[in-house]
């Protein structure tokens, strides 16, 4: 009972974080704030994905096989490994994306002195230096 309530609560919180992240990406014009909110959104979605693989059995095992276990015991206790493997990939891709985005933001700031998206659009259109 308490466990299912906790999982309900965590799910709602993670979804709130996801939508907060989308809101921030959509409405903030500062590029750094956009990147931060993108990270908040990505991390919330990754945690939600790991939560999908969790199981409501009491002594729950990580998906690591030990010698003293039989296969039936292991299958009855271990969590689902597929979401963890998918999240592992997503984390690496998010890291690569972060490197590239921050590099672009830093270089644009060095060249033009701003990271505001509206100013960047004006500069790109050639309306001001």
């Amino acid at each position, binding site marked *: 009972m308490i466990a299912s309530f906790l999982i309900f609560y965590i799910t709602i919180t993670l*979804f709130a974080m996801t*939508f907060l992240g989308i809101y921030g990406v959509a409405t903030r014009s500062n590029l750094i704030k956009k990147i931060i909110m993108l990270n908040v959104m990505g991390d919330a979605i990754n945690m939600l994905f790991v939560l*999908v693989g969790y199981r409501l059995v009491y002594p729950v095992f990580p998906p690591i096989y030990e010698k003293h276990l039989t296969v039936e015991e292991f299958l009855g206790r*271990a969590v689902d490994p*597929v979401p963890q493997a998918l999240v592992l990939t997503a984390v690496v*891709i998010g890291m690569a994306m972060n*490197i*590239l985005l921050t590099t672009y933001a830093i270089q644009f700031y060095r060249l033009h002195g701003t990271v505001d998206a509206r100013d960047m659009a004006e500069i790109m259109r050639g309306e001001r230096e």
Partner: protein
Amino acid sequence: MRRDVYVAVSFLLAFLVISYAITVKDVLGIAQNPLRTLGEFYLSHAFAHEGLTSHSPEVVTAIVWNYRGFDTLFETFVFFLAIMGALSVLRLTKEQEKSVRDLEAREPHRQMDLIVRATVKLVVIMIVSISASIALHGHLTPGGGFQGGSAMAVAALLLFAAFSKFTLERKGLTLRHTVSAYALGLALILTTVLVPVFLYGGKILQINLLPGETGLFNLDVGEYTAVTFGFLTVFLVLGISEWIFKSVLRREVR
């Protein structure tokens, strides 16, 4: 301002609808007791005695390197492309590099307090050993090359903050060396991937043909080296002082 309110209200509505579907109707099937069929297959087939896999008792590593090996390989390439994109954006010409070096020689040599430096030295040793244990033991316990490399990058950042970039460069950590080490890590991964084809007559990435746990160990070590030195490369380029970079670049722009 009004547009912000519209956006907020529509996101709130979408949030309410989707969270109702997920928590009350349980669309995603969060935290169910019976395993999904796919998870059951992986859990029961990922052991060494099946002869199918890469001798890893850790099921996540077995999935990542054996069943989804190409995905993981291409993920390494995506990381490579991101590092190369960052480097090509921050690239300097020969003359610019020379003027950066002249300006850096004129900059006063600053470093932090003795207490900070001693603490950082101790902590860095611990971080390096923990990251090595995460990476080299990654095929038996949770972890792996990428996680260990990320931890190692944190150690490098600490060193950058406490000592300066120049101290590290004087000790031999120049851009040329880090790029070479990065290439070495990638070469180790490629060799391990290609060895089954040429030595054992198998398919590409069939690392269960290699003796024992050699394949997984090599892939973890290669990923560890690649991630560590990939991050270090970007940090070294970004570690050039802001005013130096700006003055050199602005001169180029005008």
